[in-house]
């Protein structure tokens, strides 16, 4: 029971970030919450396998990402969500409201996920590599392109973020 309490607290502490990652991948409130729920269930099923509690965050994020991609692949078989609420903001919208989140949403999925994990979750390239099960070189390459794309967006809108 003690272990369950620890896990409960860890999930409650981390679930906003789990949702943020899920919504970033799935772009759909319902699917994102479903992914968090599935990850919660899986965390309970597999918590005994986690040897180092300090590594809970990358561990649960990896589970969440797997669940999100599973749902994403299934959803692609169904009717496209044309009226989806989370949509790619156009550049003109960003002019009015330079919010990093909006800028990140304009990126393609692969770059979007790397951006969220690197910038929002402060994960290292090694941790992202493990979470996404891709080589570190690929993470580096995606991160470089993500940087360039974000710089272009901000520069285009006259925001000198990194002077």
């Amino acid at each position, binding site marked *: 029971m003690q272990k369950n309490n620890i896990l409960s607290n860890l999930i409650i502490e981390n679930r906003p970030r789990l949702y943020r990652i899920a919504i970033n991948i799935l772009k759909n409130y319902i699917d994102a919450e479903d992914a968090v729920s599935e990850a919660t269930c899986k965390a309970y099923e597999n918590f005994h396998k986690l040897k180092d509690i300090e590594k809970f965050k990358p561990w649960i994020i990896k589970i969440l990402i797997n669940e999100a991609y599973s749902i994403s692949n*299934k959803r692609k078989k169904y009717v496209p969500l044309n009226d989806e609420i989370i949509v790619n903001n156009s550049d003109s919208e960003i002019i009015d409201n330079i919010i990093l989140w909006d800028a990140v949403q304009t990126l393609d999925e692969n770059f979007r996920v790397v951006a969220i994990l690197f910038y929002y979750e402060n994960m290292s390239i090694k941790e992202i590599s493990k979470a996404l099960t891709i080589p570190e070189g690929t993470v580096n390459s995606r991160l470089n392109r993500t940087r360039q794309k974000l710089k272009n967006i901000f520069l285009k809108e006259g925001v000198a973020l990194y002077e």
Partner: protein
Amino acid sequence: MNNFDEIIREKARLESISLPVGFDERNDILIEKLSTNNVNVKKPRTFYILRYRTAIVLIAAILIIGSTTIAAEQLTGGDFFTQFFNEEVNNDNINNFGFMNTEQLNNISSSTIGTVISTDEVNIDVLGVVISGNTVNVMLKVTANKLNSVLHNNGNIVLNNYRFQDERGSLFESSKETTTTYYFSDEDSNLKDNEFKILYKCIGNYNSDKYTINLDKLGYYNQNLDFVNIYDAGWQFDISFDTKADYSKDIFIDQDIFIDDLSLRFNNIQITPFTCLLYFENDKDFVYDDYEKFSDNVSSITIKLKDGTILNSTYFKYTCGFDSETNIYGAILDFTVPITVNDVESITIFDQDYLIN
């Protein structure tokens, strides 16, 4: 890490996370269940099929926390669903479902029961269909006659095991929302290894006396999440909408409500034993910010029964959505167990009570 990264990380740190209404509460319930059971609690594999060619676009999250065992193998029709909901209640040791009404289920049960597809490869049995107003629950049992097992655990909780690749037909086309849940023998001891059940929960506009279900291609998703097609075929059958009774109510409200500077017309409430839908209209052009004001404030809906029982979000799953063309906003309450519509005294929303009778 360079300066750009540091600035972006700082900017990211300052941005808040916007969670859907009720997200924390729903996850709390799930955690409580998982913690209480102290063992693995598997979540039925649930898919949401949202069809945007019809009115309401659902955007808020709903969560299925279902029981994992259904002991109603020999029962059909209303009796099947009576047993089904009893199991739901028995598996919930936290909440009091004394208001549940299963006596009405036989009267709102379709005559479509039994084997509807019988081929060498696949048998499909309709275990039960219950219909009331805009809500339909359909439970099917599928038997893969030539397979030893329909379990195909590839490690993906959502997609493992056999399933149909596509589900079509007039039932789904007439539905605004369809929730699909698969049950397999690893969770339902009444099923054989080559059998599975599917529960379709549909909300829509049903004016016909018959609707079609088309199930296409039986197979499973492999580890690359590609669909492995075992039977490249389609199976079609009809569901009769011929219940003896309909306990649903449509209550005309037609009152203005105000959320800060947003003015909406509360049009009507449709309530059935299984769901409650509330419709609001904004007479201006659709603006997402307006809808957001609505969705941010609409969550605290409660239903008061005549005996004083208050049904809050513990007893239903809450969803809201909009139709940008008509600028109608909707809220859907999906009850965990069937209620008695005539027992509903009032609904409270935006701190205002609306009498139902």
